[in-house]
């Protein structure tokens, strides 16, 4: 682990504008710090894994490009989400106007694994619960899913979510609790079963 891991985001952003190798080290630390949360957003927001990877890649490239071109970023994760969100909207808007078919993606393989009596991959209740959570999140309507993912996977405040999604805090609040209600509705029977 390099020295840069001790730096805060602000300092890392400064190094990102430098030449290599400090730029490389700074980028690596930021990548380690935020890639999982960004990737979660890309996965849930995209219609398929390939799109998610593409959005994830392009988000980091745009982020680096903008920072190196003097963009002042105060809060990195919300900024990454904003870039990713814009890329996703652009991508699917282009596909729509290009009359290519829509793509739908629900990871039912995970449900398959759950209901498969011979699958011992789900070793713990926790992993099983995570699979259920993913499944439940995937089944939320897009606006609720986005709010839920940004809040719980991204760790953003409702205010930050409101800025990213360009909505009011009240709307975010409403979406947030509706999403959670749905998730609870789906998971409660399972949890009741496991706690018996």
């Amino acid at each position, binding site marked *: 682990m390099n020295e840069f891991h001790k730096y805060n985001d602000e300092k890392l952003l400064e190094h990102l504008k430098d030449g290599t190798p400090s730029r490389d080290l700074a*980028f690596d630390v930021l990548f380690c710090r935020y890639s999982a949360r960004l990737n979660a957003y890309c996965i849930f927001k995209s219609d398929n894994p390939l799109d998610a990877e593409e959005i994830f890649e392009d988000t980091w490239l745009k982020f680096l490009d903008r920072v190196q071109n003097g963009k002042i970023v105060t809060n990195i994760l919300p900024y990454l989400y904003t870039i990713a969100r814009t890329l996703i909207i652009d991508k699917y808007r282009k596909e729509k106007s290009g009359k290519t078919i829509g793509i739908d993606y629900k990871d039912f393989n995970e449900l398959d694994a759950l209901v498969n009596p011979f*699958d011992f991959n789900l070793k713990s209740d926790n992993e099983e619960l995570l699979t259920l959570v993913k499944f439940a999140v995937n089944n939320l309507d897009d606006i609720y899913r986005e709010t839920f993912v940004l809040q719980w*996977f991204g760790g953003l405040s409702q205010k930050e979510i409101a800025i990213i999604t360009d909505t009011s805090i009240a709307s975010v609040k409403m979406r947030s609790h509706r999403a959670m209600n749905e998730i609870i509705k789906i998971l409660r029977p399972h949890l009741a079963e496991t706690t018996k």
Partner: protein
Amino acid sequence: MENSEIFIDLISGNLDDDAERQLFSELSMNDDLRADYKCFTSVTDTINRHIDSFAPTSALKSRVYAKAGIALPSDFPPPAAVTAPKTAFLSSGLFKSIFTGAATLSATIIIMLLFFQPKNHITELANNSGITPNQSNGQYPMTNSFESNNGIAKPEVKEVIKYIYLKSKNEAKSSENKENNSEPVTFEANRYLSAETQLLSENNVIANNNLNHKELHYNIPSGNFPDFLTGLAASHLFDLELFSSASWNIPKDKINPLSFSKLNNMGFNILYGVSDDFRLGAELKQETFYTEYTGTEGNKTYQYFQQPNLTTISLVAKYYPYNISFLRTFARLGLGFNTAGFVIRPSLGLEYFANYNISMQLGIDYGYFNFMHQNQRFGTGKAGFLYGVSYHL
């Protein structure tokens, strides 16, 4: 205010003191609210605990770094390892096939070492009877990615990967009733044993009462008695078989399941000996089938790629046409069903009788899987090697 709203406010620190006190008071009395709260905390805890599971793959990370012109850190695995990290092989289907095969073979060897000493066994039989120790010489429907009825146009430029759990409990019916009405297999006298020996084997005298063998004398045509073990095995009433297979999908798979079952490609049979050379029974097998099929939703035509984990239950018929010393050739046909469709599985192979109760088998098999999607039938297949061990009761 709904429960989840209160919980979210509590976690966000937006709940005032009075509301917080009221919430905790309610929690102590209201079971329903408590259940919701537990569920809420479980969800948030689970997400927090497993957020790292969303970290990008090494390959994706290296791609980002390469495109950004960023040097990968020195402790990052080299490119070769990036594409094939150590754990990738462990989690691959190939490893699991090899592993299950190795496990089956190991079990066979252990059983053989524990219970079977071939030389001693034969000598003992020879000493206890008049038997000279044996010195044996001893067009299926190929899946078309764009298979469709005439009424459905071929997709244009449509590259879609859509993971969908195959419907079909009600759409795809089991083919159990397709078992043909073949003539009952008639018992065929053992071609190699004299009448006395056959009687002996049928009554399991050797198995149950070795001491009496000394008193038995047989007219054994020279060079015509290498198959007493096979003959004995044929007299068993039940066979228990544990087997595995290494298969290749036809067409070649483009995606893998999210995870393979640890028992993938393994199966278990229980067979009843209808006659010396014919067995009938049931099979339970865990497997995947790679499927490509098309369907429409709204005005759009989709092409689906899937490889679901399936547990197939089959009716199995096994026929032994030839016996060659300790080897028996077998032809097997399985007709089965799973949650997605039906499966026809013919196979051919050799079975080696290690001793009276244990045999090992090696063969080739083909599995044809047929399923229905939107009132259209689709089929896919896989071919491979079959290997396993049988215990004869």
